[in-house]
């Protein structure tokens, strides 16, 4: 479930149409006003409305320090009257504006790097759809040629923040494949959103047990793509290090290599999978959500140094990303987003390909049309248990040698606490904890016992 949803609100009016008190044009508006006055987080509202809600809550709390008095007052005059009365002696609008730009950003002109895949949707769309501008930032999103380059450019401070694969900030912080530099993840870019694509000639070889000797491509070593593919193969009894060949290949070359019969398949971002289908060279074997529903894929990353030197810019940037991610989570916005991010300046791909990925109604490459609205989904919350899982896989496949303090690393890199604060400020409902257990291919993962989890795998790198 997305953290921006709130389906368990008992007070939500679901059946009645029209407003109960007669002050509002619709029931929805009535409800919003009422919820605002009840000091509840108000979802499904525009930014301005959300801030108004928060400010109104603060004012109400100040006016009625005792909750009993507040409720009595509300009962006697009605929510709408209370709001109107309150606005008269307290300039709610001004206060809202003051809150919205709490602490001017130290640096307004920012550069954010991205890789042109649908995983970067929130980072990219925040530019054309104005989510950065709303936070008073002037952000230039810069397309970057590859994961290693995005790593180097972010480390070199050419970028203030960047789109990275979810395990990359962990790897950079640990000094794997890079200098050890403390990096952070204030938000997850997307969940799900990958798939295993095979060449059309393998359409009758759907059982992974028959895949011995095949060649597969992944985008980068420190990627969920790598860990999920290895996990999937290992669960089917194949040792990914000896039974198949795994190659690091840039995504566009995956499609070309598949066409040229140079590889048998790949686990890649959805739009690359869909592109292979669109071009008639492959079919979708499974979506990555069938391996682990709700898995993180890419992250929004910044160095710790950026946070300490420009905390307000960082907070504004995080707000913009969380906001954009929340917007992207809604199915009704997905078509508009696909159009916004398809031009050459952003992903540079056919709109129909992006639309199929984002709306989840897609051609599977075998002649069928499938529908799965959660094929790619967006939920910004950086669960620290995600980080712990990734660390177990880094250890499992020999990327981390020796011991690792899972919890310490996860908490340093995945900034769940800060994200909670930002989400609460924005009127979203962050989860109470930062760890949750989940299951990957039916095997449940307990973030409190990573070593036991690791020990339970039969296939792993022996070292």
């Amino acid at each position, binding site marked *: 479930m997305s953290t921006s949803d709130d389906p368990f609100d008992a007070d939500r009016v679901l059946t009645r149409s029209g407003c109960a008190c007669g002050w509002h044009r619709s029931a929805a508006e009535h409800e919003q006003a009422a919820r605002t006055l009840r000091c509840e987080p108000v979802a499904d509202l525009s930014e301005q409305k959300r801030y108004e809600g928060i400010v109104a809550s603060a004012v109400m709390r100040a006016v009625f320090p005792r909750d009993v008095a507040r409720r009595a007052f509300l009962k006697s005059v009605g929510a709408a009257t209370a709001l109107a009365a309150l606005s008269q002696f307290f300039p709610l609008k001004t206060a809202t504006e003051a809150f919205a730009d709490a602490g001017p950003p130290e640096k307004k002109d920012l550069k954010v790097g991205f890789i*042109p895949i649908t995983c970067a949707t929130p980072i990219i769309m925040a530019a054309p759809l104005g989510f950065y501008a709303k936070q008073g930032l002037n952000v230039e999103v810069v397309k970057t040629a590859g994961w290693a380059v995005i790593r180097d450019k972010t480390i070199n401070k050419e970028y203030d923040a960047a789109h990275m694969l979810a395990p990359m900030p962990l790897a950079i912080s640990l000094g794997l494949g890079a200098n050890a530099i403390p990096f952070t993840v204030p938000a997850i870019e997307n969940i799900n959103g990958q798939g295993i694509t095979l060449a059309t000639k393998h359409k009758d070889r759907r059982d992974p047990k028959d895949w011995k000797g095949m060649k597969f491509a992944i985008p980068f070593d420190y990627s969920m793509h790598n860990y999920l593919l290895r996990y999937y193969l290992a669960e089917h009894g194949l040792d990914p290090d000896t039974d198949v060949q795994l190659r690091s290949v840039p995504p566009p070359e995956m499609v070309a290599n598949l066409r040229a019969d140079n590889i048998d398949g790949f686990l890649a971002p959805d739009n690359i999978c869909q592109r292979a289908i669109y071009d008639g060279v492959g079919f979708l074997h499974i979506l990555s959500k069938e391996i682990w529903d709700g898995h993180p894929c890419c992250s929004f990353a910044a160095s710790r140094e950026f946070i300490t030197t420009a905390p307000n810019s960082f907070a504004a940037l995080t707000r913009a990303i969380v906001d954009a991610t929340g917007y992207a989570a809604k199915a009704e916005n997905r078509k508009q987003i696909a159009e916004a991010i398809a031009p*050459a300046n952003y992903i540079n791909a056919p709109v129909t390909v992006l639309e199929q990925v984002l709306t989840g109604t897609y051609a599977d490459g075998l002649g069928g*049309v499938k529908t799965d609205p959660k094929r790619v989904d967006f939920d910004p919350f950086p669960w620290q248990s995600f980080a712990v899982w990734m660390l177990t896989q880094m250890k499992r496949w020999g990327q981390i040698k020796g011991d690792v303090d899972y919890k310490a690393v996860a908490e340093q890199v995945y900034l769940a606490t800060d994200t909670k604060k930002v989400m609460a400020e924005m009127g979203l409902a962050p989860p109470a904890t930062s760890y949750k257990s989940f299951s990957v291919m039916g095997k449940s993962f307990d973030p409190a016992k990573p070593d036991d989890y690791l020990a339970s795998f039969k296939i792993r790198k022996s070292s």
Partner: protein
Amino acid sequence: MTLSLRLRAAIVSIALLAAFLGAWHLATRSSGTTAAMSPEYARLMGLTATQGKSAMPGPLDVGAKLWEHLKRPFYDNGPNDKGLGIQLAYSIGRVGLGYLIAVVVAIPLGFMIGMSPLISRALDPFIQVLKPISPLAWMPLALYTIKDSSISAIFVIFICSVWPMLLNTAFGVAGVRKEWINVARTLEVGTIRRAFTVILPAAAPTILTGMRISIGIAWLVIVAAEMLVGGTGIGYFVWNEWNNLSITNVIIAILLIGLVGMLLDQVLARFTRMVTFPE
């Protein structure tokens, strides 16, 4: 009636081009036969899958796309989408800057090496080791130490264009006829003046040949360097279109890279002719 050689060559050139374009057109015609699919499914698929269109574009596709680019070469749709003219200007700018730095370093150093057998011997092992290194091998090192991708690209251009210039300058300077230097000595011309009035003009054709080789290499390298770091330039354009699997645009870029490379070479060829002297 006999036609001039030039005219006959032009006719053969055009015939070859026509034959090539014709073969290309025939080879990339769509087959038109594809497996039957439901209309709903077909709507979600690309032309290759639905109409058997070749994955390679034909000459007509390329021509149409090229015309589109030439109509508006300088548009700017934000940091990641600029017209071909702007992209080429960025690349030429980078090559120009890296190349100029190389000229400033290579020619004085080449002079020193050419004039002093001691320095020549002393530097020889370094030059021999550094010369054969592929310019792109420097790229990760440059990114890592310079910490700026556009300066790294310029550095790579510098490092790859410096060697041919250096060696040719040294060779040209060392090869200046001894009689001329001896005459200058007899006339008691100072070292500096001797370098500028006797050696430089005599070695100029060789130096310019080195510069001509260098600009060719620099232009070869910039495309690869820009593909690697991204950002701007014709190499980035190729990468961006490759990312979209738009072979049409990649072919257009290849064509333009060839044309610009030829122009750069012609400019230096003209300079070379200007300084060449009959003996």
